[in-house]
């Protein structure tokens, strides 16, 4: 039981990070039909912005802010302007190829210009264990969970309680009608790219202390984000959250109780099952398919 609680807490913490990445992924899909195959590398990169800033002498909090800002500008604005905008009218597939190439580009750039070694990354809190119902839970997991939940709640409030957020939702649901109603659709799409930039940066700050900052981190993270997004429902932010949590918990529990060499397979089997039996995802709406 004690180990079960431990596994649940660390699973929830990882799951919450997956959820952040998956939310960004679904936001881009909803507003601009971008399937970002570089999403995992987008999470890997900001950690190196932070490390670079710290190497120049910035304290951690400043470096973290710089990392988030750079991520918003480069992975948000630049990504949209240089890659997505010119490509999107050619359909989904060339953009998929381009983001695959982009992920290779980011990975190799970090490897060549920073380091191919895993870099230690400062944690948000000093390592400490909390004792809770006989289980030992690391403080770090709790903090990760808290920050991720706070981010999700903030995003939820932004999307549902503000005028701006409702404009963005309208853009996602039906850009044509949104435009007729006077919503600046182009700017709303840009905002979702900015939000994605911020989300991946936050996810990067949370996950890098656990996995260490390494140029190959993105592969597993990107995969997790896709799977979480699809399990939960591609067109729902709530779905991405649920998918991320399911994935994180499942990952930890299956590695402990079933088979560690096939731990990577469980999410995939669930993915295939969900796609075959409930393609819209657990919480998703059925998309009307244009002929």
């Amino acid at each position: 039981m004690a180990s079960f609680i431990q596994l649940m807490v660390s699973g929830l913490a990882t799951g919450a990070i997956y959820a952040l990445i998956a939310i960004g992924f679904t936001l881009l899909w909803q507003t601009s039909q971008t399937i970002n195959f570089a999403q995992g590398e987008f999470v890997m990169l900001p950690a190196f912005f932070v490390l670079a800033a710290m190497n120049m002498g910035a304290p951690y909090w400043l470096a973290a802010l710089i990392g988030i800002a750079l991520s918003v500008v480069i992975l948000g604005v630049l990504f949209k302007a240089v890659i997505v905008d010119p490509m999107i009218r050619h359909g989904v597939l060339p953009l998929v190829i381009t983001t695959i190439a982009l992920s290779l580009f980011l990975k190799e750039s970090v490897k060549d210009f920073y380091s191919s070694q895993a870099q230690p990354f400062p944690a948000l809190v000093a390592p400490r264990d909390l004792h809770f119902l006989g289980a030992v839970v690391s403080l770090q997991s709790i903090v990760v969970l808290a920050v991720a939940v706070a981010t999700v709640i903030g995003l939820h409030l932004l999307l549902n309680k503000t005028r701006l957020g409702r404009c963005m939702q309208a853009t996602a649901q039906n850009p044509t009608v949104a435009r007729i109603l006077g919503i600046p659709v182009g700017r709303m799409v840009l905002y979702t790219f900015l939000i994605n930039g911020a989300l991946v940066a936050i996810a990067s700050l949370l996950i890098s202390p656990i996995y260490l900052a390494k140029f190959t981190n993105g592969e597993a993270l990107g995969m997790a984000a896709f799977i979480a997004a699809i399990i939960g429902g591609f067109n729902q932010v709530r779905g991405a959250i649920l998918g991320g949590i399911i994935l994180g918990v499942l990952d930890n529990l299956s590695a402990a109780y079933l088979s560690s060499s096939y731990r990577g397979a469980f999410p995939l089997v669930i993915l295939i099952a969900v796609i075959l039996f409930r393609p819209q995802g657990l919480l998703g709406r059925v998309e009307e398919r244009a002929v």
Partner: protein
Amino acid sequence: MKRFGPLSVAVAAAAAIGLPFLLKPFGVYLISMWAVLTIAAIGLNLTLGYAGQVSMAQGAFVGIGAYTVALLTAAGWPFFPAFILGGALCFVIGWLLGYPALRVQHHYLAFVTLAFNTLVFLVLRNEEWLTRGSYGIAGTDRPSLFGLSTDNARVFYFLCLAILILLSAATWWMLRSPWGRAFVALRENPIRALSLGLDTRRYTLMAFALGSTLGGLAGGLYAPLVQFIEPGSFSLNLSFNLLLMVIVGGSGRFFGPFVGALIAVLLPEWMRVAEGYYLIIYAMLVMVLMVFCPSGVIGLFEKAMKPKKPPAAPAAAAIKAEATPQ
């Protein structure tokens, strides 16, 4: 294009036959690799380019074919039966993988196939009793043909080339048969295809099965060419690479995979002078190409070869200039 087509094919054929006599052993290895990967890319082009079914699992089929040949020849089978069996196995598995495509399309299908690829990788890595896991299998023998050994790299290259020519001729023929037309109809408008009486269900499965078969056959040549296979060679990276070859070469164009595979095999080698940076440059080139010419190199070529349109009549040009806002 019509006039230049046969000419460029002839030049390419001459190069394919003449080059191995001019190249060093590593060069011969590279063009053999080109021939092998082209076969796999032709298969993917069939599934993706002609029938419009997104597949990110072609690398897995190359792996299945390679492991079939490596394991069976190690167990004493001669090469060709193992080679054919590898293709047949991929036909069956590809057919089964086609079933999800009957339910879901586009990005969902991409993710199903992607998951399938990773599952195959995990099985290859974890089932050590069968595949020897991450140690891989070394030393797959090269076949001998009518008593002629293909241990020599150059002879083996010609075997690969011959199989490539055979398979591309078969594909060419198939694309011109009612089947090929049905594939394109499936890509362009599945609902109309269905209402015209095409059994879209069967053709979708067939598109997957045939494309996967070519992947498996390519794998059957890959094992004796490289003589060392391990699960990592058939991970998602290979599938991405094959997808890249098809799209960069020109998806849905017959010669696209040939050009795409050539670029994907040779470009990284040529750019080795750039040392560690070559993958960065490669990725940038792909992005630039995709931004400026999403129909790939063949598309670029077609655009360049298209006869220049005669200049519009002055009046028409004036109207057009007026119509476009300044």
